């Protein structure tokens, strides 16, 4: 058996344990920590996540953190919402009516101001530091929670998700290039009718079981399990969730007949079948020029979809079990540049959360009067991921081993934002 860094860690812990009860460990976790988790176990936990990923860096000032009357305000006015005292930008009129379900963090103190590193940071909680590549938070959830239903645990829509890296192939996102598009690998190849395909599968099972006779090892068995899972998925009624042709026109119109709207509808249907983590990707937020018309157009797309999603989830009770989250790479400069745009701004920005395990109508932290820096309660980027984990009953400090047997926490030392937790 190889001794590695892990053993080193255990040894050190054991040594600390010998020096006093405070360092005692159980199941590799300090006792206090275990107690802390036991304390929150009674609360309703989220079982699913819908993450809207806004590529390019969405302006915080023109969305979640308006600055009325300030020179940095820009072209939009704030509007009142269903959450008393909470105002958001006028580009979200329908969402404003759902804000009693939703919460905002307005004091995220980011550290990464370039697209690549910021995307890495916001999607993994870690800072990109070379050779070790960290998994995305969706893979973390897929790793920690049991699969529910027939569909894969983690599904990424309209763009690729971050890789699962050391969490393994099973935690990779299942990829849907665009909502409504059908995965050709889920049905028999063109020209192979169901009867013929089923007969092929039946013969294959016979051949494989004959081959397995007198052969040991887990590999053959695992292959058979994988085949059974694949066939199970191909035949699963849950696949209907991907087919948006049956969505009533009225629903389509409520969400806005856009890729984003259809993505939100798909996400809702997927979590209803049990999918743990759905990520919906969308770009176009890197508004170095013409920030305001671009954001107005984004609002027109996002507002009906987001508002309808929250409303529908709340109506069926799914919202209690589903954490809806909108993240971007960073915020944008409060000062409007000469191209009527805003540039990258990581020192202070906002994010949107609603639903499972999260208190509605809450605003955590604030930025200074012009939106340059956190004014109070600065929230570190990993705190967002820790909050997500906490809402799902996952301990963000759980360690997993990298290929080099180096223990890594699920989240890079994040502390859950307690004010948000229901």
């Amino acid at each position: 058996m190889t001794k590695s860094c892990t053993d080193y860690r255990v040894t050190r812990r054991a040594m600390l344990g010998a020096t006093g009860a405070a360092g005692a460990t159980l199941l590799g976790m300090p006792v206090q920590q275990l107690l802390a988790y036991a304390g929150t176990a009674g609360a309703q936990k989220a079982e699913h996540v819908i993450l809207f990923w806004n590529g390019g860096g969405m302006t915080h000032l023109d969305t979640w953190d308006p600055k009325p009357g300030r020179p940095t305000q820009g072209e939009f006015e704030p509007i009142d919402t269903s959450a008393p005292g909470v105002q958001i930008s006028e580009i979200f009129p329908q969402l404003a009516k759902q804000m009693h379900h939703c919460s905002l963090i307005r004091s995220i103190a980011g550290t990464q101001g370039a697209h690549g590193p910021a995307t890495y940071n916001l999607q993994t909680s870690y800072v990109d530091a070379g050779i070790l590549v960290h998994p995305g938070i969706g893979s973390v959830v897929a790793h920690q929670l049991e699969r529910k239903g027939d569909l894969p645990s983690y599904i990424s829509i309209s763009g690729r998700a971050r890789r699962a890296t050391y969490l393994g192939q099973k935690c990779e996102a299942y990829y849907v290039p665009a909502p409504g598009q059908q995965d050709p690998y889920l049905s028999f190849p063109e020209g192979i009718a169901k009867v013929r395909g089923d007969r092929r599968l039946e013969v294959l099972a016979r051949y494989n079981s004959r081959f397995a006779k007198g052969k040991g090892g887990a590999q053959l068995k695992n292959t058979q399990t994988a085949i059974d899972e694949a066939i199970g998925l191909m035949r699963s009624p849950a696949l209907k969730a991907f087919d948006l042709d049956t969505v009533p026109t009225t629903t389509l119109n409520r969400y806005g007949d856009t890729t984003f709207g259809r993505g939100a509808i798909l996400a809702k249907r997927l979590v209803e079948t049990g999918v743990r983590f759905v990520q919906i990707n969308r770009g176009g937020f890197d508004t170095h020029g013409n920030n305001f018309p671009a954001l107005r157009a984004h609002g027109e797309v996002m507002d009906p979809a987001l508002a309808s999603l929250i409303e529908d989830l709340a109506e069926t009770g799914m919202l209690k079990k589903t954490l809806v989250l909108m993240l971007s790479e960073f915020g944008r400069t409060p000062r409007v540049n000469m191209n009527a745009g805003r540039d990258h701004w990581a020192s202070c920005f906002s994010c949107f959360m609603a639903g499972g395990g999260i208190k509605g109508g809450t605003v955590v932290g604030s930025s200074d009067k012009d939106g340059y820096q956190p004014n109070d309660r600065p929230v570190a980027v990993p705190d967002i991921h820790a909050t997500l984990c906490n809402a799902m009953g996952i301990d963000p400090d759980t360690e997993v081993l990298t290929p080099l047997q180096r223990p890594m926490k699920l989240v890079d030392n994040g502390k859950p934002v307690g004010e948000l937790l229901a």
Partner: protein
Amino acid sequence: MPKWSLFYRCGLLALLSLVVSAPANATGLDDVLNQENSELGVGLKPAPIANDLVFLRRLSIDLIGRIPTEDEIQEYLALPKTTRRTQVVEKLLASDRFSDRWTTFFADMLRLRSNAEGGSTLIAFVHKAVEEGMPYDELCRRLISAGGKSGAVPEVGFILSDNADPLALAGITSQVFLGVRMACAECHDHPFDKWTREEFYGLAAYFGKTRRVQRRFQNRILATYTTEVDQTTVLWPPPGVGEASDRKPIAPTFPIALIKDDGKQPYLKRFAKVRASRDDLLAKVTKGKKPSGESSLDDLLSSADKRVKRRTAGDIDSGLGVLDEAKRDVEKIDVKAAGYRPSDLRQELARQVTSPRNRYFSRAFVNRVWKELVGVGFVEPIDDFSSENDFNHPQTLDYLADEFVAEGFDLRGLIRQIVGSEAYQREHAGDVDEATRLEMENAFIATPMRRMISETLYDSIVVAGHMAAVKHEAGKNMKIAWRATRVIKQPDATTPKVKPSELVKSGQPTKKMKKPVVVASSPYDLEKAIELDFDKLLKGSDSAIEVEKMMAKSAEEIEAERMLAQERRLQADYFDRYVRAEYDDNPSFNSSYRMASPAAPEHFLRVFGQPGRTELGDFRDTSASMRQQLMILNGRLTHEASRVGELEPLHRLLVGKNADLQAAIQLAYREVLTRNPSKTDLSDATEIINSADDRLAGMADLRWVLLNSNEFRFLP
């Protein structure tokens, strides 16, 4: 180094290695292993030696990365029974595909990525090195010590790809070349092994004076190269320990003691002899052809840079003219000045690492190759030689390692020894309990179950299904496709000449054309990829200014351009139109060993375990997953491979006056599984074929089952 020198020498070395390699003879290896097993008290009866066809299939998979063809099977069976195994080993070792297959082995080991800085050229370089038999120690020396410009000096991609970061490179050097996970010591003294943090920093110090420099012109990368400076970045004590003012440059120190050459190691003598004769020949050939490198590449580039700046200053347009001139300037430098400033420190390190007296170096590599071929390593994980990690059969490992050195670090020689051994040629353990099976496999007296690696699986499906070239007659697979094009309405233009039914709203085909087949590559096309032209990549390396390829636009700029284009589209009045196109869908597939690698994340190859090659210690994953099954059950690759084409030999055994169903089934079994069908197989297969609509469809069903079966993807 100029091209002639590099490749002339490689070619010559290939020639030399053929001359001096010892003939295949593995009895020595078997003797050592048997001796060691009896010392270890292994009392189990070894599994029998596998039959000739099993050996051929296993060997083809391992050496050339695909199963044998019917022609190859017949050619092999026609050889004399007593010599056919050694003969086919030689044939496969000399095959082009051997180089492809084992380039992938190196690409995994060295984490070579097509999309990294100079990555494709580096892969092409390694391919050439394998092809021409460059000794392993020389390959490593070049990788560790190379300096110069990306592309022009292909091997410098190794240093550049990790940003020339000394600590990262120290971790890579120790783990990849020496099989020692010293990177742990970056943060703390190694807990159970002897490596200290200071030793790790001492190793890193060899890389401390190397810098990665990138010269850009208007967001385009003109050149990325290494340069050597006087100041080292590696200081001791490390951050967090002691006062910052106490931090001083640390002397480069190689942490591993080399064994003494006191005449007691015959393998060192043999090595010296092999090398001396090679060097003699080399000296004769290269006499008077020394490259002339004077000023450093750095100096030359910076003067070119100054000229560019002067020109730009007076140039308002700053258009392509200046860029072209800049390109020409840098190109000129590449042609005449390969003389970059060499790194004395890294050359010294390379000498130490690759020394025949460094047992870590030869052991680490031999262990990797053994694991690749036999399935169980002497040490596992394969890059973790530590005092806490018990070696399995250390004497056998050392025997092979010494042989490897004695034969001049010749990869083919090493493989020849291993595949010639009984340890390689045995059957699986058979019907025994799990503990016994493991014991037999660990004692190397039974072959463990191994799944083909992803590229081999892909290429084997291609070859079993006759898809390397088209197999259907022209016009037999005509398909109609509706290709979507977005057309901008011109204000003055007349109504476009398409039927109203073809005028559809964006992305919404009308009912009539539900699910149009779009020919253009779809995001789901996960079974094909870009092919790399290794020769072209290396030819380009003299003037390898890859400006066009390496458009170094920042992500912001790309995003801004995208936004701009989007805006234009939003302003324009456009409509989507579907254009009817008829095309001959007669598939053929390239070898996956020539694809840009690693493939896209959802690609067939990645799903079946091709590593991303970013992390150290990220090995091939051969475990099963649901996604794999979906891709192979329903994918185009297996589907097309199953279909019987008129141009393949199987066809005339199924239809026409010479049809012979039994012969057809036998051929199908040989082509897919490299064996003849048993009686049960025959009756099963006959039933499958007879219960289908026709024989061709039935044969497609049978082949589909065989290609999907575990017997196909697991090595015999």
